[in-house]
């Protein structure tokens, strides 16, 4: 690999991990500020999945220039968490709904019969 290619991959990695950190900070603000567990779970999953994927793909962009065969396990982690994170958040919120946890007073429900 040429030097230009290495610098390009590392610069893309820096940009990607900072974008992922932005998503994590947004998820934290949502978890603190949102009124009920449904909103908190929604915003945590929305902020977590792209933040995680951007951070780990950014680290992959760096480590692929160091040792490519060692960096493949990062793609395994990303492929696993792509399915695991929404499933766990969905199961928490489904349990919340079955247990009749109260919605926030600002929420309006339209349920199907």
């Amino acid at each position, binding site marked *: 690999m040429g030097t230009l290619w290495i*610098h390009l991959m*590392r*610069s893309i*990695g*820096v940009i990607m*991990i*900072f974008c*992922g*950190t932005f998503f*994590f*900070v947004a*998820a*934290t603000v949502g*978890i*603190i500020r949102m009124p009920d*567990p449904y909103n*908190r*779970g929604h915003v*945590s999953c929305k902020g*977590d999945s792209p*933040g*995680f994927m951007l*951070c*780990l793909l950014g*680290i992959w962009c*760096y*480590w692929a220039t*160091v*040792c490519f065969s*060692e*960096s493949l*396990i*990062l793609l*395994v*982690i990303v492929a*696993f*968490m792509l399915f*695991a*994170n929404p*499933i*766990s*958040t969905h*199961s*928490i*919120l489904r*349990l*919340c709904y*079955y247990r009749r*946890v109260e919605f926030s007073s600002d929420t309006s429900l339209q349920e199907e019969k």
Partner: protein
Amino acid sequence: MLPDFIFAAKIVMVILSLTIFFCLYRAIFGPTVYDRIIAINVVSTKVVVMLALLAVIFNEAFFFTLSLVYALLLYLTTLAFVKFLGTGRLD
């Protein structure tokens, strides 16, 4: 002026540590148990990212394996908590 990836990784680790403290507020003072599970889920996801960043900072590749193990444990623990809260047993 080329960006230094290891310095950026250190900055990101500091920011993630601060956001973990703010998530622990919701884990401690959360009104329901579901808020606590959601907050701990987010904290664990951040810890997985921090382990991968630690591999970059220490220049050691086996932290990636540690990160994978922690991701598997995170998924399993959350589902076990939800199953235990929902049915009262784990079998």
